[in-house]
């Protein structure tokens, strides 16, 4: 296992290098160029533009630019073009809010996905299953921004509920619990919209996997020996059907720091999505490269973690 992990880590480093290279060239070869002074500002002189290009090495050939960006990224010196703050600090600043949002969404998708999936499998083919299936497809089809707007209008107009930001501004809470609940609400509202699709997908995976497992010989044996149906279902079948969940966690891990542009915008939530989106519009190359790099590293780490977890929960899987 150790050898496997080390080998995978080494391979990841090579892979990361290529990912950073490709993402850098995709970003810089996109038409347009960084221009931090707003629309056609008649006041920006040629001198200022030249100094700006020199400062961010934009006057150099692309391969040298790549070298500068990677060097600065690893020394922590990489600065954003928009406000010249260190990119890593900008990413770190948004990390807590982003983690909260995506952990919330992850918890909701997994828990509700499991509940719906198990419920559907338990009643496979009967009306409760049909209803949850229809529900799942409706969930997959719902556009997030539309639900968000409806929810926002409803909550604000009929309940005067604060929905924007990470907490209610202008309120001093009498105790810590209320303050915590306030923050909980501001995280869970966008998280639940992010989770709608996840719930649907996870529930379908679980249901399919359960139904497949229930056809296995050892289940028939368990039933044949007269085991209680609940015991068969939850003890024997369920434990062998959670592999999709682990895949799901592995896949969702990068999303933990990746952003949700539209939802974050609607709820004025200060997450990574807005950082990336604004960086794309402004052609903020350093920020984009750093974001891509960090996300790619997390994806690779997530894949590795999922593989290791497989081996842990499923003795049939061996890592060599």
């Amino acid at each position, binding site marked *: 296992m150790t050898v496997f992990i080390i080998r995978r880590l080494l391979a990841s480093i090579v892979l990361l290098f290529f990912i950073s290279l490709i993402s850098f060239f995709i970003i810089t070869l996109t038409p347009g160029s960084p221009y931090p002074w707003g629309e056609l500002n008649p006041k920006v002189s040629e001198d*200022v533009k030249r*100094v700006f290009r020199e400062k961010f090495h934009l006057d150099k050939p692309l391969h040298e630019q790549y070298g500068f960006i990677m060097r600065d990224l690893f020394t922590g010196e990489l600065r954003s073009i928009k*406000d010249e703050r260190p990119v890593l600090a900008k990413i770190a600043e948004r990390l807590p809010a982003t983690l909260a949002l995506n952990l919330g969404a992850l918890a909701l998708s997994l828990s509700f996905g499991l509940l719906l999936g198990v419920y559907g499998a338990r009643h496979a083919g009967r009306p409760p299953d049909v209803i949850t299936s229809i529900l799942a497809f409706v969930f997959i089809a719902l556009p997030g921004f539309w639900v968000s707007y409806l929810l926002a209008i409803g909550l604000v107009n009929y309940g005067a509920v604060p929905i924007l930001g990470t907490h209610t*501004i202008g309120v001093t809470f009498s105790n810590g619990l209320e303050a915590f609940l*306030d923050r909980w609400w501001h995280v869970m509202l966008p998280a639940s919209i992010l989770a709608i699709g996840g719930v649907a997908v996870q529930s379908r995976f679980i249901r399919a996997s359960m139904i497949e497992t229930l056809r296995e010989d050892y289940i028939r044996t368990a039933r044949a020996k007269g085991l209680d149906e609940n015991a068969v279902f939850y003890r024997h079948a369920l434990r062998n059907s959670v592999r999709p969940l682990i895949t799901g966690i592995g896949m969702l891990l990068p999303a933990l720091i990746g952003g949700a542009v539209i939802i974050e915008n609607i*709820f004025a939530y200060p997450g990574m999505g807005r950082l990336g989106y604004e960086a794309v519009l402004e052609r903020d190359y350093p920020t984009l490269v750093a974001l891509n790099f960090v996300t790619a590293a997390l994806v690779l780490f997530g894949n590795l973690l999922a593989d290791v977890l497989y081996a842990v929960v499923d003795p049939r899987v061996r890592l060599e």
Partner: protein
Amino acid sequence: MGFLTEKIRIVPRLRTLIVGIPLLLAAVTALALWTVSRVTVDKKNEMYIGSIGEPGTLNPVQAADSASGSVTGVIFNGLLKYNAGLEIVGDLAAEWDLSQRSTFFFDSAEEAILAAANLEAGVMDREELHLRRYAVEGNRLELELSLPGVDDSEKLATKFGVTPLTVRTLSVMAPKPLSDALTLFAAKESTARVVRVWSNGNLGELVFLGDDEATRERLRVWLAERFGEEGLRIEPVQGPGFLAEPVVVFRLHDDVRWHDGAPFTSRDVKFTYEAIMDDRVASPRKPDYELVLSVETPDARRVRVVYRRPFSPALESWMMSVLPAHLLAGVPPDQWPLTFNRKPVGTGPFKFAEWKTNQFVRVARNEDYFKGLPHLDGIVFRTLPDPLTLRLAFETRQVDFWSADPWAVGSFRADERFTLFTSPSNSYNYVGWNLRRPMFQDLRVRRALAHAVNIDQMIRYILYGYGTQSTGIFTPEMWFFNPRVRPLAYDPESARQLLDEAGWVPGKDGIRVKDGQRFAFTLITNNGNVIRSDIATLVQENLRAVGIEVTVEMYEWAVFLKRFVNQGEFDAVVLGWALGQGFDQFQIWHSSQAEPERLNMVGYQSKEADRLLESVREEFDRDEIIRQCGELQQLIYDDQPYLFLFVPEGTSVMWKDAFRVKRPGPDGTWIDEPVKMTKAGWSHYLEWFYRPEYATEASE
């Protein structure tokens, strides 16, 4: 047995978890919803302003976006500002004096003395020619006049009786900083002939007496030895033949302190100027100060600015916010983004308190403000990037003020609870015709296009009536606007006639044809701007009706600029200009600005317009500025390089009962009034806003 009990226990536990965790999450969330729906927001004595954009930096010298501008506007002061009627008044400067220093050079000291004596004898009425004093120093005669500009000096020169030497100026641009090279050259030349060396970065100027060509050639050789021929540009500057240098002296208020308690002095002003000129700061305001020769500080309360030549937008540039030298002077500019730009210290009515990225910037009342205690405890600038939720936040009073789009304002118009502000903006929208394309080179065609487009319809359906038809390069609120320019009326019949005259006759498919070429072109604009894409659609429809085929294409902003607009690679473009209060539009219309990456992207070339653009920059006389600007506006409107569309009004709404204004009036009285729109914007009296429920505090 132990094995069995474990089995029995584990089964209900898994089932409980599967049901329990989602239930728990749902229950806590429901509890949270219940809690937040009960809280009452106490905004205290603060104002909440919502905006879509996030400030980029809170350093006023570097900021270019409007979100940054509205925050730094309450934290910092300039030396001067506009009053409610858009006249220039003092801010940090208590008073200022504008004068002219004209220096004439003679062959010898004797001649200079003779010229001075003749002047003394020849000038009867010093007042009329604005002559304050004169002095002879060596071979030079220096005049000081109370009115900037060259006219009076030229009149005085006729009295000398001796012909002064001609002053020539060479402007130099080099690929590298050239201060040393220029200074050495000046020292190498006989110093009596070079009278002034000025340089800033790669730009320099050499002012000398006498022969033009030879010096120019020697300078070229000298600089080429150092920098190489490439990128070297030496050009003579047109001038009056003597040194004509405007001088502004500011006297600063005595009792101003920075938010950290340090006194505000003339050193701060000089430092701010140096920061703007420093290329490492990359200030977009640098061009405003390019003609400054020197900024001196005779004492802590006075600043003396000398310009290299007449430049009438000079005063406006000193509305620039002043930076604190005591905090920034020793810090290299590349460190500013880490410290000062996120935590600014100013002199303004509000001081910086807190910035939560992507959420809000909070400023708090400056207890020590030199114009008196602001009424509000603070202002919170919230960033709410989505227009719909911003609207919801306004409707539920989470923000008090909202700059809304015209279409959104309609629903607030009839509602008694809101105050609606409309302000004529200094911006206009246009369709620019690329004059490098043969089809747009015929003036009759451009006039026909203008007649064919229904601008009233645009104002009605795109702006919901909040706008007026544009009549050229200036907008009606500007004091030099020419109201006599008649707008071209919507008249498809004349449009057809003009097109017929120009040789474009309808073809088989209804599209006009000339010399086998169909009148078809592509109109481009950027994505994500509803007003511009609506304009493009209406133009397309209107022109179809007179037999012109328009294809509309939209590009993402960065692509739009880089690939098309900056390269001049387009047929026609929908764009808008957001202008300042100044009348200098050299960069937009002068023929020298038609190269790629410059702002005259339609390629407008007019000798007459060039002349006016150059001369108005050096004009200080108010009536003369109005005359020249009026002529320029008429000239360009007649030429129709753009189809000038409309001047939209800025629209915004505020909760009517939220604020009133109580501001110092004349003779120590207080004027208490509702929040009203001023020419300088709704927020002009922001430091005197108060919440009526805190009225007692405001009256203290």
